[in-house]
Each structure stands twice: as structure tokens, then as C-alpha cells.
């Protein structure tokens, strides 16, 4: 069973009273451990797809099945639980909380899920992203690349089945960006985590097992390698 299944999904928004069709009848299956690159121009629907995949939003029509569970069948609490247990997010601008230390940032999803003593898990995830010894620092004491590694560690803290990354290298220089992409690819393989990366980066596209090219809310090209 695919970890993520989008079945004939459409998503419409109203912007200034005008309907915008962000996704139009899109279908896609993502398996565990698969590394998917989502490419396309700005506004083609990449972020919308990630939001639907991450149970942050509902489709206007069609079905989104996350680990076999239809997101449309769940209330807010059920969606929250689904996110907590199955999904990890990574953002372009890192989105670390500056009031918390690196350890505390990484631990946050577990603490929100009511888990006690998450320090060991945080230490382990920081080791995965090669940031051992920096746990007590605050985000402003880190470089951009280090901050994004912290974000990756945070996204993986609860061992999600699905990792969603929205332009994870957009705020980084090419070399650092490539390192982060390599890291994501490696972790997807090692942890058997399905990873979807929305990106403009050709490097990301070349690393992916699956390349999904979106255009005007539809899949223009789907390449599995």
C-alpha cells in the first residue's frame, strides 16, 4: 500500500472573490522510502499538493489517503494526530523558534504529542544530520545550512512515514543546498521514509527516484527511475 495516495484530487481557492483552481484532478502514489522531486513554475500547485499531502488542508474533490486513511474523513483532532505520527515538514526559511535551543526545537513535535523525555531521540536525530554538540545553541548562533539541518532533524524526530520539504534549499547557497539534498536522500533511504521535495533545483530533480513536473495544477510529466 502506498504511504500517500492522491486520487483525482482537485483544490479550488477563492482569491479576492475569484476562484483559483490550484490542483485539477491530480492522482499520485508515493511508496515508503521513495524520494520524489516536485518541480514546476511558481503557482503551479506544488505547495498546495504538499499541504494536502501533509493533512494540513482538505481537497475540494477527490481523495487524499495518508497511510490508508482518508484525510477528508477526519475532524481537526484526527488530522492533528495523523500529522503528529506520520508527517514531517521542512520549510524554505527553516522556521526554527528563536526562543528555543537546538535541542528544544528538535524535541518540539514529540513534546506537542505529549511524549516525555525526548532528549535521547533529539540527540540521535542531530547525529543523523551531523550536528552533535550543537544542541545547546540557539538558532541565531548557527549558519543557514546548520539551521536547515536542525529543521531536518526536527522533521524526523517522530520517525514520520512521509517527509514533506517545501523549497528546502531556497535560502541556501548551491553547495550547502546540495549537501542538504544529499542528506535528505540518504535519510529517505536509511529510514525508509517517503520524501517529497518541492523544488526549483535541478540537483534535487536529478537525485529523485521520481520526478513529478506540475503545470497549472496538473501532472505534466511523471518519471520514475
Amino acid at each position, binding site marked *: 500500500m502506498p504511504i500517500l495516495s492522491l486520487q483525482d484530487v482537485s483544490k479550488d481557492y477563492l482569491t479576492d472573490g475569484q476562484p483559483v483552481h490550484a490542483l485539477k484532478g491530480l492522482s499520485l502514489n508515493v511508496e515508503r522510502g521513495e524520494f520524489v522531486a516536485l518541480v514546476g513554475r511558481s503557482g503551479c500547485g506544488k505547495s498546495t499538493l504538499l499541504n494536502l499531502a501533509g493533512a*494540513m488542508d482538505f481537497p475540494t474533490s477527490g481523495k487524499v489517503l495518508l497511510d490508508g486513511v482518508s484525510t477528508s474523513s477526519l475532524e481537526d483532532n484526527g488530522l*492533528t494526530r495523523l500529522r503528529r505520527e506520520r508527517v514531517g515538514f521542512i520549510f524554505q526559511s527553516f522556521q526554527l*523558534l528563536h*526562543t528555543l535551543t537546538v535541542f528544544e526545537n528538535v524535541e*518540539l513535535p514529540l*513534546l*506537542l504529542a*505529549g511524549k516525555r523525555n525526548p532528549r535521547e531521540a533529539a540527540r540521535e536525530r542531530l547525529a543523523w544530520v551531523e550536528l552533535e554538540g550543537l544542541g545547546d545553541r540557539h538558532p541565531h548562533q548557527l549558519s543557514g545550512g546548520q539551521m536547515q539541518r536542525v529543521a531536518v532533524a526536527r522533521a524526523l524526530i517522530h520517525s514520520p512515514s512521509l517527509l514533506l520539504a517545501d523549497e528546502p534549499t531556497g535560502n541556501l547557497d548551491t553547495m550547502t543546498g546540495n549537501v542538504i539534498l544529499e542528506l535528505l536522500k540518504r535519510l529517505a533511504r536509511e529510514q525508509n521514509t517517503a520524501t517529497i521535495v518541492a523544488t526549483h533545483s535541478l540537483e534535487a530533480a536529478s537525485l529523485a527516484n521520481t520526478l513529478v513536473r506540475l503545470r497549472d495544477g496538473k501532472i505534466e510529466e511523471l518519471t520514475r527511475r
Partner: protein
Amino acid sequence: MPRFLLFYRLMVRPLLREPLRTLLTILAIALGVAVVLAIALAGDAATGSFRSSMETLAGENELEVLTSGGVPEYVVGTLATLAYSIRVSPRIEDYAVITDTKKSLPLIGLDLVAEGSAYAQSAFQKTAESQTQSAQVFNQVGDADDIWVGSSVGYRTSDRVELLINDRVRKYTVRGVYPDSNGNESAIVMDLAAAQHALGRYGRVDRILLKVPETPSLGDWQLRLRTVLPAGVEVRLRGTATNENRRMLAAFRWNLRLLSYISLIVGAFLIYNTISVSVVRRRPEIGIVRSLGASRGVILSAFLGEAACLGLAGALIGLPLGRLMATGAVRLMAATVESLYVSSRPGAIELNGACVLLALAIGVGVAVASSYSPAREASRVSPVEAMARGRREYDARVHKARDLWLALVLGLAAAAASRAPAVAGKPLLGYLAAILLVAASALAMPAFVDALTSVASNLLDKVFGVEAMLASRTLRASLRRTSVLVGALSTAIAMMTAVGIMVGSFRQTVVLWMSDQLPADLYLRPAGFAAADRHPTISSGVAEEVAKLPGVAAVERLRAYEISYEDMPATLASADLNVRRSHGNSDFFSGRPREQVFAELRDSNAVIVSEPFTYKHHLKAGDSLTLSLGATQASFRIADVYYDYSSERGSILMDRQTMLRFLPDPAPSNVAIYVSPDSQLEIVRAEIEKATAGHRVLLFSNRDLRAEAMRIFDRTFAITYALEAVAIIVAVMGIAGALLALVIDRRRELGLLRFFGAATWQVRKLILIEASLLGLLANLAGLALGFVLSLILIYVVNKQSFGWTIRFHWPVEILFGALTVVYGVTVLAGLYPAQVAVRLNPIEVIHEE
């Protein structure tokens, strides 16, 4: 014009985008302005425009002749027969209660035969019609049961009216109605002889008004007339009593006015916070505008202008609100003035041009002054840095250690100021000490908040979970904003605590004092109108009849007179000290046994005086004072000073026999009755009621009297509590507004939490814990500051304003209740911001940046 357009676009429009938060800020200012205005308006109406009720129908007389206990009637003849062209108007002055309506009105006895038409001509010069009416009204002198009333009282000629005067009720016939300027001159007028009869004041009048020729000067007339008057009788400018009363009320008004500024101080904190938030949010914009050519001055005036707009809007709302609040305040103030100071008639509440200017000046002035610091900071922003670094510098600019040292210096200055004496009779340095302490507390706040949130963070995490940890971290991270909010709320709480402790201590002191001063079982007093300066009497003989009743062990007759001592009103009283000696339990400054002190008073010119009296006149035990009593003057030695909390006027107490030597009227003002230990109180009470059936008297048990005293006490401080409540409301509104701002500023972070699996209830919990932490910090800081302020209020401000010794007492239950309510309300203030946080769309806010 382009500048106004820019100001609108860059400063006003952002305010309109957050209407609720802007409204909360404006309302906070409006409430502050309204309270100050209400107290000023009510003060003017209840005391400021104070005019003794006894000046009713006083006409254009320039001088008055009077003495304690009444002027002997022969003095009228002496003055009337002088070889000068002087108009002599003897008056009897007291109060009567219309039994139907329970309305009390001045009762004026005039020599209508002698001055009917003359009086009418001089007293009512307003219109030709009223002049004619008045002349007709007072030219009809009739019987002893005839009265004339002001038109506003609502009676017509020939109506029968039942009046309660002292302890007697009698029916009178309205013989005429005079125009009384919308109630300002309303009174019950009767002929002098009839009034003397009704009040039992035979052979004396209360006051003689004189109209003297224009030359020589009034001062010369006073000197000239003094030579023909008996030693104890004084001649002075008419209206002197009004001025004396105004002086006496000055401290009351002054303290109330200062209390009304608390809300404004709290409001100032909140304006400071609003403009600070505004500066932080717009740092990048400031950078851009600066880089496009705006000068520092433009930035400074833009932010000051923003504050001025808020202040102006607040003042405009505060004006009608203040007028509305004044209506309630004047009732409370008038009741306090009457029970503690003097019988008076509140004037009309007048919202004039000066009031409008005051409101605008307060609203705009406080807003601009409190916003100056953040506005100046905005003007100093480096354009490049502002565009690059945004908000972080704001939080970095808190100098905890430096501010803590400054707080220490201010605290020491406050300690020094609190030990200084009064300035011109006012506790100015006491107030300065309080202001310095509030400032010191504000400066120490960042260190306090930082230390406490730091300590609490881990503990909260363990007890309340990750939301609590996030809340405490957020508050600590926005240290300056948090400190200002905690400072605002803690100032309001501190003032509430300080006033609560002061009033609680005062209350407890009065309760203990009453247990000493009210040892009798029953108390009898006339049903007629009584006030701090009005002492109706019980017909002579009643007390003696009661004393003979079975079961009555003893009666103690107390007589009180309203006097003027060294240009200040005071109460002169006498009591059967032989009775009190055997039953009482008085408390003196010297600590001597009461028997010893009272023994000194028997058959000698010795008196004891109350603590406020010694404070007002700078006297002490062993000093002498000279009193005008009837036609004579006599010197008295102060044997001791006693604690007295019944009135702020100041009292002199002598033995009844001593007083009767000078003022022979035996009628007591009230009677304390001691029941034999072997008799049943209720049986004796019934016997007394039967014996006094022909008189309108009120019989109180000891418990009833104490309860009545405490009711008056609580009513006196009701306005104080109301002022405190408004300050708290202002602060809580500020907290709600600030939390809203905090939610809006942190929407990205809150959205992010949703991405990481936070449920909506967790976001709500986070905001409520923040509100709760703010409330907790403010309660702790407010309680500590309030305790210190209460010491200043009790031992400096109260002592220097009123001269009372108050024993410190923790009103634990009241404080606990009040702080719990404030805490609860603060948490509730977080509900709406929490709801806003929950409603945020995480996808939108994440992609905003």
C-alpha cells in the same frame, strides 16, 4: 497636505487594520480620562463649589456675628441700637425633615416682622417678578405654625406639612412659596420666635447677619463692632464658615483626585507598550522611509502623532463617559462629605469648556508623553540596520542590570522622601515617595520577569507541559514588552493592594476603637437630620426619665456643638465622664488610665482633644486653648489626646458639668444607656421605647450602632474601590490588547506549531498560559509593591492628610479575593486572543514570510 496623506497612509491606516486592538487602547485612555474628569466634576459639585447650606437666603449681608452654642439674644438689641446704619438680621439655623418625603432641608428662622420686605428686596434681586413675589411672600407674618418654602420643594400655599425637628414632629401650614433658583435656595423658613420654639433655643440665635455701610472698610467695621460685643462673640466676614469648610475638604479632594490618576498612569504604560509594538513592527518600514529621505524629526513626530491620535480619540470618548461617571461619583462623595465633614448640598455637574480642555490635555498629553521614549527610539533607527535586522534589536535593548541599579537608587530616594514632613499641610513628599516606588518597580521589572520566567520555565514544563514552556520562553524572549505589560498590571494591582491594606487596616482600627468607645448597651438619638456638623438634640428630661427606668444602670448624656477653632471647623462635645469613667475603656496617647485622665477633667477647665484636632492645630497634651462659649471666652488645658475615628473634623471633649457652666442648654445630642447586668436587654429596650413614645428618637443596640458605623465607613470608601476597579479594568484591557498584538506578531510561530502536530486546544492553552503567567507575575510584583505603598499610605499620606493613627492589618480575605478575581480576569482576557490564534490559517501564515 502631502504630510497628512503620508501620516494617514503610514500611521493611521495600520491602526485601522487592527480595529479591536486600537479600540482597546483608545478605551484604556478613555477610561483614564473619564475617571479623572468624573472625580474633578463630582468634586466640584460635591465639595469644590461647596457652599454651606446655611448660606441659604443670606442675602447681601457682609458680616456675621456668632459664637459656639449661640449668640445671646440681647446682642441683637445691642447691635440694632448702635448709632450706625446697620441692618441686623438674626437667624436660627438648623435642619428639618419633611416626614412625607424624608427630605431634609435647611430650617431658617428669620425675624420676619423686622425685615420681611427689606429681606425680600435684597435677597431676590434677580427679576422684577421674583422681587415682587418675595416681598409678598415674606410680608405675611402669621402664627407659630406657619412656614414658607422654596418653590422647588413642591408645596403650595395652605398645604399642611409635617416636619421632624430634633425629636419632635409637628404640623405646619405653608403660608407662602418663594422662588428658589432651581432648588439652590430651597429651605423651610419660619419666624424667628417660632424657630426658637421648635428647636428649644430660647434666648439665643445661631447667627446675626449684618449689612453695613460701604465706608469704612469691612475690616474697620469688624474692629468697631468687636468693641461692643461680649468677649466670646465673634464678628467676621460672612461666608467664613464656607471657606473654612472648603479648606477642611481640601485634603479629601486632593487625595481622591490623586487616586483618580492611577488609571491614567496604568493607561500611560499601555500607550507606551502600544507605541513600542508599533515601532518594532514597523522597523523595516522606518528603515525604508528613512532611506527615502525622511528625517529623524519626521519619524519622531509621526509616532508622537500616532499617540496623539489615540489620546485625542480617548479624550473624546472619555468626555461623555466622565460626565456619566460623575453622576454616580457625586452621590458617593456627597454622602461621604455629609457623614465625615459637613452638611452640604451638591451643586450641579457642569461640563464646561475648562473640563473639555482638561480632558483633551490629559488624553493627548499622557499619550504623547508616554510614547516619547519609543518614538525617540524609532527616530534613531539606522535605515540599513532596520531593513536588515528588523525586530531583534528591540528585544536586545533591555538593560536589566543598569535599570536594576537605577531602581535601587529610586527606592532609596523614595525611602528618604517618605520620612520628610508635610509641605503646606499636604503629604507632597509622601506622594513623591509613592511615585518613585512605582518608577523603581517599573525599572526593576525586566530583571524580575527575566529571573522568574527563567526559574519557572522548567518547572512549568514539568507541570503544565510544553505549552507552558513555550509560553514562558516567549514572554522571556519579549522581555521589554512583557515587562511593560506586567508593569502596567502590577501598578494597578499594587494600588489596589495598597489601598486595600490601608482601608482594611483603617477598618480594623475603627472596629477595635469602637469596642473601646461604645461600651454602652443601648444608644438613643433624635430622629432629626444629623451630619458631621449637625447635632440635633433630644428634649431635655428624656434622658433623666430613661435613667429612672428599672433595669437602667446609668445613662451618659453627650452634647455636641459645631464650633470654629482657629479658622477650622471642629466639634465641641461634653459627656457625663463620671459614668464613662466607671464603664468606659478609653485610649489615650499618654497611655494613662482613663480614670486618671477623667478625674483631671472634673470641675476644671481641662479638656481632652482628638488626634486629628492636635494634628490640624499643632497642639499636644499640656498646651492650652481658648474657646468662645456663648458670651464668654475661656482658656482650657489639654489634659490628654485621645484616638478618634468618628470624624476628621477634630473634637474637643469636656465634662458635661463644665460645659453647662458656659452653655447651659441641658438637651443632649445623644444618650448612652447602660443596662444592669441582672436585667434583660430586650425588656429594658421595650421600657425605653414606651417611655420615649412621644418623641421621635432612634434607639440602637450596641451591635446595630456598630453595624451602622461600619456601613458608613464602607460607603465612604466605595468610591475608592470604584477607582481601583477602573484602574484594573484599564490594565486588563491592556493585557487583552497586548496579547492580541502578541498573537498577531507570532502568527507564523503559531502556524508552525500546527504543522508540527499541535492541536487547536494546545494553541489555545499556550495563549491562556501566557495570559496566566502575565497575571501571576503582575500579582506577585503588585503585591510586593502594594505592601510597600500601603506603608506610605498608612504612615505618611494618611497621617499627614488627616492625622489619624492607623494600626497595620493584613485584610487577608479581601486581598486574596481581589487578587484571585484580578488573576481570573487576566486569564479571561486571553480568551479572545487565544481564539484568534486558533483561527489562524497555518498555511497562510507560514507562506506570508
